[in-house]
């Protein structure tokens, strides 16, 4: 399998895998039962998305790697998720703001990829789009509730937007060697996705009475395997079982 496509698949899968793990950390810690379940449901949708891609990558490795090998037995620098997905849950506003940024990204990514000339990507996107449409509706409504709720909820949501904003640009970065794949209609057009994403975020932040940071500085690196300090802790937890019991089956 060509490396460019493989990395593109891994980016999609690793984003979902790591974000799903972060959401799963919140299981049993939600503010109340219904929200706890809803958040865990999103985590389950995302792990399903990641698994579908890992299984496909396994098939294309001519049986040399299982999907679990790909998911659990890589070095930190081989994971290609964006820095945003590995950010800690923090308080509920931070968890939901991270989710809102990601949901909006997913929504436009999968809308665009539904027309990809790569049949796996178009099928995966068509299926995921239904889930993501619901996720985006939910997280958008939470942003609006935070901003129009109490002084405290608004302040916490604003803090979350301020602290996470610097990671949002990386979602749309395009490496030089993937331009051809965009032009030939295999990969999504990130420029287009970014402008749609900005419109959506502007709209929801407006309805939430929240502001984007002025003069933002952006950080990236995750897509190239350069992760922050959080990633080591995440992988230690994710990889504990396959490391301790390599033959474990369930």
């Amino acid at each position, binding site marked *: 399998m060509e490396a460019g496509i493989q990395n593109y698949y891994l980016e999609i899968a690793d984003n979902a895998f790591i974000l799903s793990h972060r959401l799963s950390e919140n299981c049993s810690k939600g*503010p*109340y*039962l*219904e*929200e706890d*379940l*809803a958040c865990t*449901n999103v985590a389950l949708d995302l792990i399903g998305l990641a698994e579908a891609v890992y299984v496909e990558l396994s098939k294309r490795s001519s049986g040399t790697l299982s999907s679990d090998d790909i998911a659990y037995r890589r070095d930190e620098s081989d994971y290609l998720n964006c820095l945003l997905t590995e950010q800690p849950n923090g308080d509920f506003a931070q968890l939901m703001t991270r989710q809102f940024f990601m949901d909006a990204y997913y929504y436009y990514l999968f809308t665009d990829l539904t027309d990809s000339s790569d049949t796996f990507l178009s099928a995966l996107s068509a299926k995921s789009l239904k889930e993501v449409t*619901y996720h985006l*509706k*939910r997280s958008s*409504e939470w942003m609006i*509730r935070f901003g129009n709720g109490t002084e405290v909820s608004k302040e916490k949501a604003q803090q979350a937007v301020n602290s996470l904003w610097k990671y949002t640009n990386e979602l749309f970065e395009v490496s030089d060697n993937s331009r051809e794949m965009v032009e030939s209609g295999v990969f999504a057009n990130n420029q287009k996705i970014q402008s749609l994403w900005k419109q959506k975020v502007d709209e929801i932040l407006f309805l939430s009475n929240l502001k984007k940071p002025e003069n933002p500085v952006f950080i990236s690196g995750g897509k190239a395997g350069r992760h922050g300090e959080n990633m080591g802790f995440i992988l230690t937890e994710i990889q504990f079982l396959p490391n301790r019991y390599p033959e474990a089956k369930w």
Partner: protein
Amino acid sequence: MSSEDQGQLWEVFIQSKPGQPHKHAGSIHAYDKEMALENARDVYTRRNEGINLWLLPSIEIISVSDSESPSYFEPANDKIYRHPTFYNLPEGVKQM
């Protein structure tokens, strides 16, 4: 948000198939209508239970009180002739 403040209580009714009545499934907490629908979806319909949902605030349900129950329902006990069991059904009618 205090742990006691979980919003309003809502009753959840699920329609399993087109044309079927909505049936009571249980209740959930939520702060507004949108959240009520979403919470009901996430708690009750993720395993193919239904194709539609009705939600209504539990406080809007009116009910017969325990003390009134006898006067409402017991007079029906000795009036079995109100059941259509004294007719002979034509053969071929499987279900009435």
